[in-house]
């Protein structure tokens, strides 16, 4: 749903479909996403990080 940018190769992709599941046995509780281009994994910005990103973005926009 939310486009994310890979910090390694800079590809922009749909974060909703890029979970590391179903391969990883810990996928159910893990919020990491994997870049479809270079496979770099990094955590999805959810929960507190999402709120923080939103607050900082709003501050920058105003």
């Amino acid at each position: 749903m939310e486009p994310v940018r890979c910090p390694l190769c800079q590809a922009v992709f749909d974060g909703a479909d890029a979970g590391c599941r179903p391969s990883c046995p810990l996928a159910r509780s893990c919020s990491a996403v994997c870049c479809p281009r270079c496979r770099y994994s990094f955590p999805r910005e959810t929960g507190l990080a999402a709120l923080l990103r939103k607050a900082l973005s709003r501050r920058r926009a105003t």
Partner: protein
Amino acid sequence: MSEVLDAPARATAERAAAGLRTLVLVGNANVGKSALFGALTGKYATVSNYPGTTVEVMRGALSARGANFSVLDTPGTSGLFPGGEDEQATRDILLGEPGATVVQVCDAKNLRRGLLLALELAEAQVPAVLALNMADEAWERGIAIDVALLEQLLGIPVVPTVAVQRQGLRALREALARARPATLEARYDPALEQALSDAQPLLPRDLGLAPRALAMLALLGDASLRSWLRPRISEAALRRLDDLAQRAARDLGPLRIRVAQARLQVVDILLARVLHLVLPPGPTRGAAWIDRLTTHRWLGLPLLAAVLYACYQFVGVFGAKVCVDFLERAVFAERLTPWVAGALRWSDFLAGPDGLIAGRYGLFSMGLSYGLAIILPIVATFFLAFSALEDSGYLPRLSVMADRALRAIGLNGKAVLPMVLGLGCDTMATMTARVLETKKERVLVTLLLALGVPCSAQLAVIFAMLAGVSAAASLWFAGTILAVIFVVGWLAAKVIPGSRSDFVVELPPLRLPQPANVLVKTVARIEWYLREALPLFLVGTLLLWGLDRAGALAALERAAAPLVVGLLDLPREAAGAFIAGFLRRDYAAAGLFAHWQPLMRAGAMTRGMEIQVVVALTTITLFIPCIANFLVIIKERGWRTAMAMLAFILPVAFGTGAAVNALMRRFY
């Protein structure tokens, strides 16, 4: 069917009566509509199937300059003539929402495609605003758009946006009040114009698209339009429309191509006036010099060493000493643990010396204390440093450096990426080994990952431990791990036939890390770590508690004593850390850290203890992979390979530990 299709129109009328206007986001696929929808409406959105279809449509709310909007996010479309169910849903939303304001989201990098759709929306006479999304990427690629001129030529507000960074949203919200039908119009050849003129009087005016757009769809043979027209116009008018469409197809040839050509002509004239290709802003001379330095064959190495040293100081000194000291001693040992033990003193089972919660292997006194007081400050500082490296664009450059080093031992260039990714998570990196071409390459990289590449959390604890010993001891550790990777890689590369493949990685511009980005990434990583690691810490503690209660831990320590005490010269309790290490390697490292930390803090580390730290760290780093990684190895490579790796790794880990112990006692 018509009732179903009219349902949105009725809903729109109800919303209008409640003072709610409709805003529809329309655009080609992959232009960032959903990102813009999220940025405009916030978190709360409802998802439902559009009536009569299986296509999901999101609806949210927006207030702009005193007006309240119900915002609809539509599936990506290339035009009003539907090419599939998704595109038909978008077209039907526009038909069923008369009076709605449209925000057309366009990829600024692909203006031509966006303007083709804009031209159709102009024909449909919908009040619109054009959002030039991904404006930053267009600029980075040297694409400059004369926004003021485009606005003037189209006759609608045009706003550059970067939805993912929430840029341009304020201007977009303000532009909604100025939304109007575009004045730009494509003119077709006279025969087609005549057919359009003949068809327009037959068509309804209460739909969301103007009669000229409806006439065009009818002439192009859009069968899906019929269900919208049937309840609104007479049978005779429908028959007349069919006649006009048949005549147009017969007299004007391939109509869709002619229409597309006419529209493209208009768009190309527009593009020639508003689109300029410019050179992107280049880096300054200083920045370009640093950029070259980062990947330089020799000069890049001291820079890499400096980066590692800065991480080591920040994580090992600030994180592992200052922060851990405070949390472990002042918060956990002096306040929380005594308080929990006091609150549970009525139960020996929970708070006794071997209690489940506050005992020696208690879930609180050990599990949470490890997770929150020891590991959390260390990984938090490490994640901060790692996120800064990531945001600066240095990581891809690190893979270039690693490529050179690994090529020197004959390893395939493609193997570099999984090895570098392993520093994040070995489990994921093991899956990445799929990109390698031969089975042997995949097995080799999986083995090297499981053997010698520490994951980020483990690396953080390693930094913390090394901060408590001398620089020479740290070099012993780093040298040993690198030597093992190189020797195993070199030997394996000897038995792997075939040519080396090229390693291609796109280097993003090197830049100063942005504090906001670094902070958010760090928080995301800490959240991820707490969610994934903390439960396993508790499981590990529970396992140790159970083994201890059953007397099995002492038995295991006795059984492992010849190996742990005899061969490695480590304290007997280190056996517990190796057992827990199978759950998570950083948990094992935390156990070792907790053992030596009081001595490090007191400055009472002797030469023998420093050797023990290096031996323990070397063994645990080379030790069998964590349970998640092991399960993925089984899944990816099969049981037999996984067990063979285990059989290889265990003796290598203990053998290397023993060799380091012997060498250090002689030469350190």
